């Protein structure tokens, strides 16, 4: 019997080629979109899930009140890790980890500046990245040990066995390779190509034992059976207890976040991690489901619309003994067959589009053909889609009365008109919803992009200070200006697009009890901060140690900081930080150094008695960029010959701040486009079929005097009405969803009516274009032909 069902289904598909093609194409595009999204979702959900001790690993966090609001952060004191390991018996291991190393690696003639991290020796036992060579337990035991990734090892040593080989770091220290890690997978939050032991960080003097200085990530692995809740309660006041009597740390809390949640839950509300990437995962899972439903609706609509063609078969089968149950199985089986064909086509579409999609989502996605689990999921997916698409038509078709259908009394449109209209409205509601959302995301990105960032990022580059740059800074600065490569140069703590440091521990004249818990972002400059970055002075002057020798302890405030400090005359104010008194010499207008979607926080630019990590160079506008860069390269080669000249453009770095939102916007646009395409595909087939079934009516109307316009309006109008209803239904939903989304941003647009009107108009034009061909063709047909067939 199954063979008989299969034959009937196959011959039906072949006989109705156009409708079958539309059905299969729509379903496969929907499935392909769904598979792409699910691959991304799976990638997100699998981040760092491969570590064997996953459930026991916790991320140490702080929570405190800043400017009246609770917030959390995962930077911890250097001393916390060893203290936890020593004093807390439930801790099996504690690991410190810090990325951002840019050491110069030298092996024979090869010189590289790879990015790496410092980690405690237990890192490789807590996090089970596959170690190809070496022993995880002692690979980072000695101060001169180094663990490389496979790729870096190959870059440094070619095909030679790297174990035991020596790498020279910064021309000072020699390290023995004690381990080779398999290249890090794409689905990990860690980003390093080598690991150096934490003891080397100690040796460099880059660590301290201050409980108030939070500069490292600390992970603990709890012992088997240890309770996270109990541990949280125990460590809650660890910082406060180590800083007794210090009012600054009275409200400081320490708590853990399960490591497995860190990737997905990074957004916090009132000091608790409540969302983050998980919101995107949920949103796109919902979009994937909706796209699949829309594609299935095409199948439902076409199957029920064309049910007249199958009515006789149902009647005959019933007459010769088929029961309703058997017919339901037959029709669902047909739909599963179609779903299987569509799935194969979808796999081809996915294979073709996966490289582009991987670039879009910035993850290396792949179809795991060799995994049996993939094929099990594929089977479930086919069955689910098949049953979803086929169940309504199956129940609908199998309920036909054989007497009526065999006598030719069957009228499909009369009995099925409402469900089909509802399904079309659902399709277009989703499409309109996605299009409105896409427009709003795009508007929000544009809104932030066009926000005045308060400085001039054009022709502004920064260079990390490595090797001999610090030593020869004055000479380099003079050369850059005198040889005409730079218009201005300033040393700073961090690139202007990032914050490296912040501090609660700032006091000033007139500071009140309420002001105590305010966190200030710290930057630094030796001179020409305003001139180089192109920020604007609100009052006072720039720091300039070369012009004003007393400026070694000068500071600049931004307007928000000056306001927050309640300074009546900021230029007479004196601050105290790091045990030094600092004089305010100027106030700069607020500029965006972090997220363009957030309000600008209070900032202090400290004078030359600071730590410097970065050079900002304003290129000379008289020369071409190439000329400036060539001169710069020569100067850096002269003073810092060991290191390759590496620089970044500030405007490119600033543009990266929009990456996540642009990714969301592009994905939303892509899937909105696909949704409207699939919906229109269904609408096209439905209108074609309606035109076919109403041919006699059209003939009669024409004979009675209807014009082509009358007929076209008649046939198109019924569909357009559905599209208008969809717009009306989708608009408030879109407003609600997107208004909530916008609440994530402090600097945001307000949703106006044009986006709804514009989308409605756009969708109606698309729908009209889709159905007008059929309507006009039907209206232009010779009525005599239609009526003669009667």
């Amino acid at each position, binding site marked *: *019997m199954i063979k*008989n069902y299969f*034959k*009937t289904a196959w*011959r*039906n598909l072949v*006989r109705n080629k156009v409708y079958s093609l539309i059905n299969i194409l729509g379903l496969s595009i929907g499935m392909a979109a769904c598979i792409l999204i699910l691959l991304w979702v799976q990638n997100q959900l699998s981040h760092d899930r491969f570590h064997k001790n996953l459930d026991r690993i916790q991320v140490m966090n702080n929570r405190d009140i800043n400017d009246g609001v609770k917030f959390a952060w995962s930077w911890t004191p250097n001393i916390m890790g060893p203290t936890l390991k020593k004093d807390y018996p439930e801790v099996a291991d504690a690991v410190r980890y810090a990325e951002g190393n840019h050491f110069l690696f030298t092996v024979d003639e090869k010189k590289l500046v790879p990015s790496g991290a410092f980690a405690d020796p237990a890192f490789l036992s807590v996090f089970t990245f596959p170690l190809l060579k070496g022993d995880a337990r002692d690979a980072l035991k000695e101060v001169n040990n180094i663990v490389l990734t496979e790729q870096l090892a190959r870059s440094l040593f070619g095909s030679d066995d790297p174990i035991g080989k020596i790498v020279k770091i910064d021309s000072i220290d020699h390290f023995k390779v004690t381990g080779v890690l398999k290249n890090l997978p794409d689905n990990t939050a860690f980003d390093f190509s080598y690991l150096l032991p934490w003891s080397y960080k100690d040796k460099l003097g880059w660590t301290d034992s201050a409980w108030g200085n939070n500069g490292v990530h600390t992970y603990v692995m709890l012992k088997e059976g240890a309770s996270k809740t109990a541990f949280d309660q125990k460590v809650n006041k660890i910082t406060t207890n180590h800083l007794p009597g210090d009012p600054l740390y009275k409200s400081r809390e320490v708590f853990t976040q399960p490591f497995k949640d860190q990737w997905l839950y990074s957004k916090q509300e009132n000091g608790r991690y409540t969302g983050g990437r998980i919101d995107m995962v949920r949103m796109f899972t919902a979009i994937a489901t909706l796209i699949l439903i829309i594609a299935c609706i095409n199948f439902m609509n076409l199957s029920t619309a064309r049910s007249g063609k199958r009515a*006789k*078969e149902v*009647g*005959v*089968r*019933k*007459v*010769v*003994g*088929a*029961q*309703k149950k*058997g017919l339901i199985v037959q029709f669902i089986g047909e739909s599963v067959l179609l779903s299987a064909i569509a799935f194969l086509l979808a796999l081809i579409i996915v294979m073709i589009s996966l490289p582009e999609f991987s670039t879009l989502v910035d993850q290396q996605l792949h179809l795991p053909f060799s995994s049996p689990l993939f094929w099990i999921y594929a089977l479930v997916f086919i069955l689910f889609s098949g049953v979803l698409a086929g169940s309504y038509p199956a129940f609908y078709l199998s309920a036909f009365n*054989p*007497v009526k259908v*065999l*006598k*030719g009394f069957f009228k499909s449109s009369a009995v099925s008109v409402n469900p089909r209209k509802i399904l079309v409205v659902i399709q277009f509601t989703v499409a309109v919803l996605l299009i409105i959302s896409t427009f709003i995301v795009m508007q929000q990105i544009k809104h932030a992009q066009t926000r005045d960032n308060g400085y001039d990022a054009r022709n502004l580059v920064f260079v990390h200070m490595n090797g001999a740059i610090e030593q020869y800074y004055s000479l380099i600065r003079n050369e850059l200006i005198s040889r005409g490569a730079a218009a201005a140069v300033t040393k700073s703590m961090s690139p202007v697009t990032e914050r490296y440091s912040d501090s609660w521990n700032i006091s000033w004249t007139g500071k009140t009890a309420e002001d105590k818990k305010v966190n200030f972002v710290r930057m630094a400059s030796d001179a020409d901060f305003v001139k180089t970055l192109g920020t604007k002075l609100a009052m006072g002057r720039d720091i300039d140690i070369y012009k004003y020798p007393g400026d070694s302890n000068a500071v600049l405030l931004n307007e928000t900081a000056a306001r927050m400090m309640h300074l009546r005359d900021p230029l007479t104010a004196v601050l105290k930080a790091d045990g030094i008194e600092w004089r305010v010499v100027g106030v700069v207008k607020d500029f965006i150094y972090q997220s363009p979607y957030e309000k600008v926080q209070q900032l202090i630019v400290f004078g030359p008695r600071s730590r410097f990590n970065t050079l900002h160079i304003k290129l000379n506008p008289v020369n071409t960029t190439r000329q400036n860069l060539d001169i710069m390269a020569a100067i850096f080669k002269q003073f810092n010959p060991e290191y390759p000249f590496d620089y970044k453009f500030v405007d490119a770095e600033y543009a990266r701040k929009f990456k996540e939102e642009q990714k969301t916007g592009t994905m939303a646009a892509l899937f909105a486009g696909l949704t409207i395409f699939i919906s229109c595909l269904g609408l096209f087939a439905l209108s074609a079929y309606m035109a076919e079934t109403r041919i006699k009516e059209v003939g009669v109307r024409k004979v009675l005097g209807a014009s082509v316009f009358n007929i076209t309006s008649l046939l198109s109008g019924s569909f357009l009405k559905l599209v208008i209803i969809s717009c009306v239904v989708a608009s408030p939903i879109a407003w609600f969803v997107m208004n909530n989304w916008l609440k994530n941003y402090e600097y945001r647009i307000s949703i106006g009516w044009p986006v709804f009107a514009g989308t409605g108009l756009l969708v109606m034009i698309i729908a009209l274009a889709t159905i007008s061909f059929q309507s006009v063709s039907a209206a232009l047909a010779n009525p005599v032909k239609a009526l003669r067939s009667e």
Partner: protein
Amino acid sequence: MIKITNLEKIYRTEEVETVALNDLSFEVRDGEFVAVMGPSGCGKSTLLNILGLLDDPDAGSFLFNGVEVAKFNERKRADMRKKNIGFVFQSFNLIDELTVFENVELPLMYAGVKKSERKARVDEVLEKVQIMHRRNHFPQQLSGGQQQRVAVARAVVNKPKLILADEPTGNLDSSNGNEVMQMLTDLNEAGTTIVMVTHSEHDARYSHRIIRMLDGHTVTENILV
């Protein structure tokens, strides 16, 4: 074989009530060939649908081989149908996507007959209706007469006790019509009971008895043999 007593069937819409069968009673004996005649709308087809267990009466009794079937549920009716009744329609009602062989094979599949036996029985019946040479053709590749022969083959392949024919020659020319009537006669002579609805006096004369209907009940019965 068939005994109906005081059968009633009323079709209702919101505004109109149409009495299709009105206190109808008659009997069909085993091996009989009965023709039902009457003007359009007199209830002939409704009667045939009830006899074929495709529809159920609103009142009255319907005994099939002594079993009351008037209130059977869908499953029981389907079961009774596939074991005992064959249908021949005016418009043939072959499934376009199935070949001649597959169309005729269908009732045997629903009856759960094994594949090897199905093949033998379908071939045998196709030989009998002289359409064997077209066994792999699709219905739309056949003439009307050929299609009706396939429909007759499908009706008899399961060796039903009763064949219900609804204007079997209505869509055929006289030559093809006579052929089909001869086939039904042969089947009847071989022992199959036949109830045929027809407008044609010529076709009716092939039967043993003619029941004439008007407004849902019998008006006369003519015994021909």
